[in-house]
């Protein structure tokens, strides 16, 4: 644990990425609170102003305005909490399912394991984004539905990982001892085995967040994401694509926001993976 922490601290890229993640989280929470309190800053993200439509970045609208004269900067800041909420909650849902399924398969083994893993293999054959799109379109696009669907589709990787960890852990001495003492399955799973598989689970969780953010952006882009007027990074691009040749700022900035957010999570996750890995990658 301590060694992992030290290794993580030595990784400058990882630290920068973690800082970025922290900054994004602060922005998301701050603007969520501002939104709830009804204090628009720097401008009201939904306020239209047709006299100032499709203007390039200037001193009033720092990142320009869209076709209804709404301030792109305010909309970007306001879209941050949608992206991060989708990212975090979807990962939470997928972790919950993945860990449970993987733990059951890995702990019980035999035919339970065979059946569950066949099912997981089958789900993994589906083109993930198409499956998400189909389900979201049929249920109806809303932030809640998007989170649930992304979570329901993306748990397979976690399940495989937890199962593999559990298959090795169940043979270990302390699990054998716990079983010999007559402890029940659930208690052994949650008290003894899960904490020992926590590190790789944490890594997949962090790496799962950007996947969910990108999936939400893609859905929003196709019009099946969070519905307007609520701004999200994906739907600002979707709305802006009509004006692509006149208003590059409508495409460039939200895309950069998605890129930076996803990249920060990926780099943090990778640094975590390197830190908790038992074997060093260096030769």
């Amino acid at each position, binding site marked *: 644990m301590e060694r992992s922490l030290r290794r993580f601290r030595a990784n400058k*890229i990882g630290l920068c990425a973690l800082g970025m993640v922290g900054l994004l989280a602060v922005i998301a929470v701050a603007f969520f609170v501002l939104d709830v309190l009804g204090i628009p800053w720097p401008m009201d993200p939904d306020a239209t102003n047709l006299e100032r439509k499709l203007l390039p970045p200037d001193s009033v609208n720092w990142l320009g305005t869209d076709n209804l004269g709404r301030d792109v900067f305010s909309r970007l800041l306001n879209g941050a909490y949608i992206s991060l909420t989708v990212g975090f909650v979807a990962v939470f849902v997928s972790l919950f399912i993945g860990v449970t399924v993987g733990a059951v398969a890995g702990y019980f083994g035999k035919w339970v394991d065979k059946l569950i893993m*066949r*099912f997981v*293999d*089958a*789900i*993994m*054959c*589906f*083109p*993930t*984004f*198409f*499956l*998400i*799109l*189909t*389900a979201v*379109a*049929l*249920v*109806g696009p809303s932030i809640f539905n998007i989170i649930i669907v992304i979570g329901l589709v993306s748990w397979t990787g976690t399940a495989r990982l937890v199962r593999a960890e559990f298959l090795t852990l169940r043979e270990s001495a302390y699990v054998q001892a716990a079983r010999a003492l007559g402890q029940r399955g659930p208690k052994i799973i949650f008290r003894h085995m899960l904490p020992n598989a926590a590190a790789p689970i944490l890594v997949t969780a962090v790496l799962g967040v*950007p996947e969910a953010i*990108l999936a939400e*952006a*893609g859905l929003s*882009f*196709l019009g*099946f994401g969070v519905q307007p007027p609520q701004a999200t990074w*994906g739907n600002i*691009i979707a709305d802006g*694509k009509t004006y*692509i*040749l006149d208003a*590059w700022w409508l*495409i*460039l900035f*939200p*895309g950069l926001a*998605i*890129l930076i957010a*996803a*990249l920060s999570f*990926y*780099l943090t996750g*990778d640094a975590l993976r390197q830190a908790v890995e038992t074997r060093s*990658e*260096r*030769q």
Partner: protein
Amino acid sequence: MTVFIIRRLLASVVLLFFISLISFFIITLTPGSPYPWGELNPKVSEDVKRIFREKFHLDKPLHEQYGFIMRDLFTGELRSIKDERPVLAKIAERLPSTLALNLGALALSLSFGLLLGVYGARHAGRPPDVITSVLAFVFIALPGFWVSYLLAIGLVNYGAVPILGTHTIGVTFSNGLEVFLDRWWHVMLPASILAIGGVAVQSRFIRASMIETLREDYIRTARAKGLDENAVFYRHALRNSVRPLITGIGMLLPALIGGAVIIENIFAYPGMGRLGYEAVLERDYPTLVALNFVTAALVLLGNLLADVLYAVVDPRVRLE
């Protein structure tokens, strides 16, 4: 070998059954109306609704519906709700474009992934490796639709790369070769954008596999007998670390086909992804079931192919 392939085929049948269950229930169990008109549309009479329900077996219980839909799918009788054409025919006419796009993207992912991964491993731990690693994550984090639009602006203004459709419209080519080249010229841009993420993922796997191989005893032996570092690296280590190249076939396919939904839309490319998007818009249930089933089956085929190929390439793998 034959026994192995037969066993894998049998296992695939089981998987295919699960796949059919999932693709059917994802669509039927989600709330929402399967009717092309709204559920409560007063202009549609009860009779029309009843006839519609009977035609598409919607008046039967779910397990019977599943039976009907699978029977119809395999006999080619399954028809789209929208235009009542056989779904398999609709998919078949999109298949060549889809294969060209996805196989092109797959080839790009594997080849450039290999280059980037080997380069990273060669300089492991040093600045070039750090740079390629960060670059790989930038590639994974890039939203494909965003890159498409940025590139489209650039290419419309400063280049002569086609950004729409599968072939040049209004031009008749004199021979087959030109037609072929024209098609590939059109596939290139969407395939490259689709491949960006795949290149990055592949490079990470190749790099990891390479670094692991470099720790083997026989590499130490090769170095100890005085072989020059390049020979050790490219002749001894590289050959034994190409495993991700083959497993990548099966692993990248779902992401590629899924990502193609967006890319095909942007570049007006008539593949299965676009068919799927149109079916989603029209709530065309039979087409959606069939598309999900067919794409998953294609991925399964890719996995099977990868397994067999893996055993052929690597004699250490015993076929059990």
